[in-house]
């Protein structure tokens, strides 16, 4: 097995540029993928991981071209299958930092089953889903996250498929880390990428990404700079759920139902608001938050859920260590001679 360590000194000196590959970036001018790429390259040096121990694996789609632009190991695989390749790599090489870059079609249409299973297994991967609510690379068909009734090349009369909520799917599949960010909110996006990297287990980060060619402005309604403060809410662990330019609105729990309330002087006291706890074992509140949508509610961004559970890759290694500890290292001769043997002179 290859040794994956380098003297720390070399790790220190890494900068953003060290993660920029020599490949010309080939996205449409104005594509939200640029921002995700930039932030990804920016946070890499802070992770303190030797570059050669980082691997980006993607499926197929515009978003899935990202690995080409990262000066790390990379694998631009086939449509929807990145999680399977990442699982095999991480399970066999737990010391590597393995990232999965995917799109709404790649992850939730053809790749849906692998997402379910990688999440429940809690393989220690970082999954970054570029959700542009459209099939970009194939030039504009609707995706599993496109809104009902959307007219596209393949739905000239409007879609009749109710969309999936990526975070609800993830939480329903036993995810231990679930978060959301917006391409144009660079600073918050960077923080989320860092959190994603820090979590031990499968981290699932949905990034709202604008496809300015085939689905321009899909998120503008709540994500545009001017309105963002009033139409999104940033989840912060241990903090009450306040939002609004004036920080004057909040979310209060009423039975099992969340309501938007005015906070402060002529509103309810902060104390009445729901306090965000990303560490709850029970995923039900995270699920409830994953249902909130504009215009009825502010769209939550940030970490919805972050709980600890042994990771698949470590458990696999431990089983081997325990087996060796208990039965001694394997000996071919012994296995060959299993069962009845006989000698022919």
């Amino acid at each position, binding site marked *: 097995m290859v040794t994956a360590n380098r003297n720390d000194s070399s790790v220190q000196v890494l900068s953003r540029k060290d993660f920029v590959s020599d490949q010309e970036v080939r996205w449409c001018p104005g594509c939200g993928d640029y921002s995700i790429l930039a932030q990804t390259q920016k946070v890499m040096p802070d992770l303190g991981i030797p570059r050669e121990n980082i691997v980006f694996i993607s499926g197929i789609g515009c978003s899935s071209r990202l*690995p080409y632009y990262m000066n790390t190991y990379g694998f631009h695989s086939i449509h929807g299958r990145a*999680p399977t390749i990442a699982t095999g790599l991480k399970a*066999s090489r737990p010391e590597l930092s393995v990232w999965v870059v995917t799109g709404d079609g790649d992850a939730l249409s053809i790749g849906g089953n692998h997402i379910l299973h990688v999440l429940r297994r809690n393989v220690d991967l970082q999954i970054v889903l570029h959700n542009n609510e459209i099939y970009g690379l194939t030039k504009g068909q609707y995706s599993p996250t496109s809104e009902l009734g959307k007219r596209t090349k393949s739905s000239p009369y409007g879609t009749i498929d109710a969309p999936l909520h990526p975070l609800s799917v993830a939480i329903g599949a036993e995810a231990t880390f679930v978060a959301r960010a917006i391409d144009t909110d660079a600073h918050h996006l960077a923080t989320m990428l860092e959190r994603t990297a820090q979590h031990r287990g499968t981290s699932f980060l949905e990034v709202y990404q604008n496809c300015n060619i085939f689905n321009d402005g899909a998120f503008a309604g709540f994500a545009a700079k001017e309105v963002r403060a009033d139409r999104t809410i940033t989840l912060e662990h241990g903090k009450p759920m306040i939002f609004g330019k004036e920080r004057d609105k909040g979310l209060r729990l009423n039975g099992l139902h969340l309501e938007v309330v005015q906070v402060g002087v002529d509103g309810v006291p902060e104390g009445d608001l729901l306090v965000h706890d990303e560490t709850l074992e029970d995923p039900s509140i995270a699920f409830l938050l994953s249902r909130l949508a504009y215009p009825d509610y502010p769209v939550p961004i940030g970490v919805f859920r972050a709980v600890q559970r042994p990771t698949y890759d470590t458990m696999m290694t431990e089983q081997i260590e325990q087996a060796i500890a208990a039965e001694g290292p394997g000996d071919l001769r012994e296995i*060959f001679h299993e069962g009845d043997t006989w000698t022919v002179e």
Partner: protein
Amino acid sequence: MTTLIKESEQPDHPELLELDRVTIRFAGDSGDGMQLAGTQFTKTSAVAGNDISTFPDIPAEIRAPQGSLPGVSGFQVSFSSQEIYTPGDAPDVLVAMNPAALKTNIGDLPRGGILVVNQDEFNDTNLRKAAYATNPLEDGSLSAYRLFKVPISTLNARALKDSGLTAVQIDRCKNMFALGIMFWLYSRSLDTTLRWIDEKFGKNPGVAEANKTSVKSGYYFGETTEMFATHYHVPKAKQQPGLYRNITGNEATALGFLTASKLAGLQLFYGSYPITPASDVLHELSRFKRFGVKTFQAEDEIAAVGSAIGAAFGGSMGLTGTSGPGLALKSEAIGLAVMVELPLVIMNVQRGGPSTGLPTKTEQADLLQAMFGRNGESPVPIVAPATASDCFNMAIEAWRIAIKYRTPVIFLSDGYLGMGSEPWLIPDVGSLPKIEANFAHDPATFQPYARDPQTLARPWAVPGTPDLEHRIGGLEKADITGNVNYEPVNHNKMVHLRAAKIAGIVQDVPDIEVTGEASGGLLVLGWGSTYGVITTAVQRARAEGKKVSGAHIRHLNPLPANLGDVLKRYDTVLMPEMNLGQMRLLLRGRYLVDIIGLNKVSGRPFTIAEVEDKIAELTG
């Protein structure tokens, strides 16, 4: 031949005859433990020095209703004082534990064959379940056979009445009673089985005792009753000296993969999704934690092959295994492996098709899928074991090719090999040549798609190696740099390079060897599990003085360099295949030789007789 060893003075004392070869089939309800009785008889005969070959016939249903026809489970063992290659066409002895077992198996028993039945089970209910209008034990319909009606259930119950076991537990021992009878009939020692019972039921002395009592009672029953006028003895076979064990093809395959990983000094990673008849390899490999083997039961076949590709990218031996329908699902990902040129082994234990087909039956009809079941020009080497124990060798061979040439390799076994068993001369691990991984290390010279001039293989540069960071993928690659490239000239070049690399493996493929004439007459050519039948049939034909030769292909792609010349040297070439002529098509297309086919797609292996008859037809 048969020699009378000892003339018995008193008529009531059975005589002992010596035989070359005997084939017994144990048949009963799935619940009757026939597989177990069969395996025990096999081990005992092996230990006694016979050459042996076995084949289980397991029902497709998990547990069809008790006593029903689909619920019948059979196990055939052939043991001999000569070298044998197959479990035999027809049994000499049939043990039928109930009417259904009789109904489904009697057709295979030659007239004059020995038929031992458990009389107790021939009651109205069971007869009805087996769709017998009248009781065959009474209506004379079995007059053609040497019928022995034994009230096995009753005798066994009587023997165990003081065992303290429940009636059900007692009844479960009746297979041991039947086994005991066979042990006596073929003058076998009980030691192996008695020892095995102790190991198996050690924790449960009561049950252990009961089983031992049953097998002994069966034995004494044979000895003391006057039922059998004769019993038999099959002397030791002349075999290559050494230490042997009995092994199924699937076990040998698992051991081969494990051994390959030790020879390469790399971690073995097996990603698989259960499917009959390949699941046993997953079961076996998942036991090998102590060897650092990692097994991953994936959510489906696509995830299974994907995980193996991921492991391969990481520098481990990425292995995946399945049967026909699963191979179909892996098609796209195997194409990816062709494009990224990473070592990968795909095991396919063929079963009856198309579609879900006949899951527990055997067939050779996935060859063309293995060759061509991917989009675009995506050549993949294929190796096929010839016998259960050859699975061990070819599993290692698959890895040698995969690692040396950085390519996916398909290991094409089948249900007959996988489930069948034979003695395996335990190899000396030390004697096996190492496998060199040769990972890339040097940034100065590294180019992701630069090729070794000798093998045309690209470097295997694994994550964790400083300064070899690079990106691979399924889009066409530029020669040398491996960057994405859509240029016509480059694509044409890469397509030809990939083809040349696989074709070039021929340098490591041994020439095909012919047994028999160097030229002229009939050549019977086979691949895969038909080896045993063909070899036997050819031997017999030659013994009759026919001008017949035999050859067997184990490297299906690329084919041995001399194969074309060899084929052209014979007047006639016959190719028996358990498909409609898949390899025949490839050979005709490649060498323009008018090969004749013998094709049977029944889910069952050829019988020696079927091949002999065809030989006779072509030489007669």
